[in-house]
């Protein structure tokens, strides 16, 4: 395993704290556009890599932040396990640290849980260069404040991640993907209905119509052989009941996860590289209550639904204000991704004040990734 450079990194942060030098925490650079640009001295953390501990029977893996996500996932796969939140890589070199710092979760998220749900503990450097550990390597742990989950999604603004312990799960024995032509409103009703029944659903996505093909609902069912077989039969029946013109366009059963065409579809969805995401300058991500009705009158444009309707990607010409206000009214929030980076939904003044106080608690000099999430944070 590579050398442990924690103390080295801590010393660099300590010095930066003393010198009031802002730092940009740099991994592989795959998540550059998931936040605002930070102009600061780079703190390279990619070299701090390697799997520290992995006992498959324990369902826990601990790895350094610079560990390649690919490597981590292949080590888990060798033992028939996986990261249950199906993290997007968004680049060949994606590291575990960047994934956790950005709080990224894939299509399984609404059914299995998010990156934060599987984070058990972190070792980190705070803004004064102190090496701290929070949480641990066990599933039940209520000793002290849960500072480890707080790091997930904070994009390095509260600390430099050194190592992360994650809960992992067995890979499903089999998977089955189904697709059927239907409009978005019907798809939302269908996804809502299915989520209300204990089914082994692990993905539900609706693709908007294009000039080449009609709009489609895609569903993925994973788990024990018997559970999947029973669920597929049930879902097919529901399909037929819902529309008279039952048109099952695609059905693929995979023995092992991710082998065939269906696997490629879910990977492309996760990596935001389906045709929908190509050739676009700017795309909105709306995080909404899953059953929220479609909103074409207020927010016209092509819309792709993931997470059973809870994550919606929208290409629209309407102004940022209109999108933000609409998302908030619907009980969620919107983020704009474009070539400059990401623009998060504004926080209320009271909540922003609380964020600033939490930031100061971890990073009193304001030197870690300043402005990465919001100006002044």
């Amino acid at each position, binding site marked *: 395993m590579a050398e442990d450079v924690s103390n080295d990194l801590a010393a660099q942060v300590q010095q930066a704290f003393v010198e009031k030098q802002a730092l940009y925490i740099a991994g592989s650079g795959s998540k550059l556009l998931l936040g605002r640009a930070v102009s600061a001295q780079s703190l390279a953390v990619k070299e701090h890599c390697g799997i520290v501990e992995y*006992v*498959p029977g*324990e369902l*826990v893996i601990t790895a350094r932040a610079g560990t390649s996500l690919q490597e981590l996932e292949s080590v888990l796969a060798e033992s028939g396990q996986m990261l249950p939140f199906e993290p997007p890589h968004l680049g060949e070199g994606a590291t575990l640290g960047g994934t956790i710092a950005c*709080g990224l979760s894939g299509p399984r998220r*609404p059914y299995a*849980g*998010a990156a*934060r749900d599987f984070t058990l503990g972190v070792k980190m450097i705070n803004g004064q260069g102190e090496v*701290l*550990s929070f949480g641990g*390597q*066990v*599933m*039940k*742990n*209520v*000793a*002290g*404040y*849960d*500072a480890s*989950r*707080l790091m*997930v999604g*904070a994009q390095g603004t509260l600390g430099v991640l050194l190592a992360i312990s994650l809960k992992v*799960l*067995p890979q499903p*024995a089999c998977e089955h993907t189904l697709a059927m032509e239907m409009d978005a409103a019907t798809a939302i009703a269908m996804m809502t209905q299915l*989520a*209300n*029944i*204990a089914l082994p659903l692990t993905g539900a996505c609706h693709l908007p119509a294009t000039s080449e093909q009609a709009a489609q609902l895609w569903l993925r069912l994973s788990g*024990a*052989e*018997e*559970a999947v*077989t*029973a669920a597929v039969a049930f879902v097919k029946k529901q399909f037929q009941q819902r529309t008279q013109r039952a048109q099952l366009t695609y059905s693929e059963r995979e023995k092992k996860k991710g082998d065939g065409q269906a696997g490629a579809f879910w990977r492309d969805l996760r990596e935001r590289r389906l045709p929908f995401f190509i050739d676009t300058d700017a795309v909105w991500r709306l*995080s909404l*209550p*899953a*059953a929220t009705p479609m909103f074409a009158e207020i927010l016209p444009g092509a819309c792709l639904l993931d*997470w059973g309707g*809870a*994550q919606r990607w929208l290409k629209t010409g309407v102004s940022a204000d209109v999108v933000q206000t609409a998302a908030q009214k619907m*009980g*969620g*929030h919107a983020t704009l991704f474009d070539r400059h980076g990401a623009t*998060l939904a504004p926080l*209320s003044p*009271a909540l922003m004040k*609380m*964020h600033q*106080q*939490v930031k*100061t*608690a*971890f990073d009193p000099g304001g030197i870690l990734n300043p402005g990465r999430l*919001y100006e002044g944070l």
Partner: protein
Amino acid sequence: MQIESPRVLANQLVTLFRQFLAVESVLSREEERRPYECDGLSVYRQLPLLVVLPETVAQVQRVLRICSEHNVPVVARGAGTGLSGGALPLADGVLLSLAKFNRILDIDLQNRCARVQPGVRNLAISEAVAAYNLYYAPDPSSQIACSIGGNVAENAGGVHCLKYGLTVHNILKLEIVTMEGERLTIGSDALDTPGFDLLALLTGSEGMLGVIVEVTVKLLPRPETVQVLLAAFDDVVKAGDAVGNIIAEGIIPAGLEMMDNPAIRAAEAFAQAGYPEDAAAILLCELDGCQQEVEVQVEQVKTVLQHCGATEVRVAASATEREKFWKGRKAAFPAVGRISPDYYCMDGTIPRHQLAKVLSGIAALSEEYSLPVANVFHAGDGNLHPLILFDASRPGELARTEEMGGRILDLCVAVGGTITGEHGVGIEKIEQMCHQFSSAELQQMHAVKAAFDPAGLLNPGKAVPTLHRCAEFGAMHVHHGEVPFPELERF
């Protein structure tokens, strides 16, 4: 600032509170305050200065503003069933009861969530949505009485955590009021929010960061079917290995519980669950899912258990037998309370593969201190509840028990575990916090506290020890089987 006598201060506060609270919602007489002197950890008792029972969020805000202005500490309280003294009042502080916040405000079937007030009982949520085939997953043993606000404050668990997670995994949104009286929305009705994950930070913060005034919980569809297996072993290590092997098969049981021989015998004598009393350990394994899946998994688990040397494997033949299997386990705490004048309950979590080492360590300590131990173990998630049997009427025995308990928790920390899996630190494990965390880590936690509560008035003295005062130590102390809330099942 002029130092006022407590009674003068109390009278002054009563006048202020009665401007917006009904007479019966401000309790100042001693006999009215008495029921609030302790929570589920009744070995610690303290009469609060005053008790207030507001019923609107605006009233909570006014109470907190007044207390902030007068520099009076506040302890929030839900149902008072906590096991670590998190809701222990302060002599110079106001006890803020959320008991009147007992309404389910909204059930959203489309999005499978419910918006509830903090005083709503955990089980009441599942009952309210049972007709829709939904339920709220976390099931702490006190679920018939404990409130959802307290569950959030403690990040409560239960016996189904391995598969369904803790409170933090099952809530979407909180409304909180800060010590300064400001109302904040944390989280949202969507699956995530921009900015920091304050929802995770607030969960399990033991009432130190804010007062929870509303909770939006996630609801899950009920699994189609449930089955339970009971396996007996002649060696606890074999039982421990079986747990790892079940999981290595790719099976995630809904519940996986282990008891050692002293716990088995106590439970059997108390509950007549039909447990094999000569077994060194038993495992209870609950599987859920669709009919076909559960049938197959039952066979798989049976095979694993036999390969691991189980001397007997039983599959519940009916719902009644399933309940019987669970009955002994759920009665384990009161059962132990009957065979010993007193017992002392620990709550460490360990990496499961360290079980043999920890159990032999506990056995050695048991011998060294001449105090018997019964072990009850949430085996699936590594949460161990050793119950130390002692007699407080013997001089010095409580002190020796506490010392031994401390050493058990040190052992849990030494193998990579934690001092508390689900009961919280509260006042009880404040000393062990110093063993698990470095000074810098504790300082960081104090900084987090200050970010929310700069004056340090919300539940001061709990959860995170000050660096120069890592001294207090206690535990869930049960005298002659008289548990607080004896009607509750304790897992």
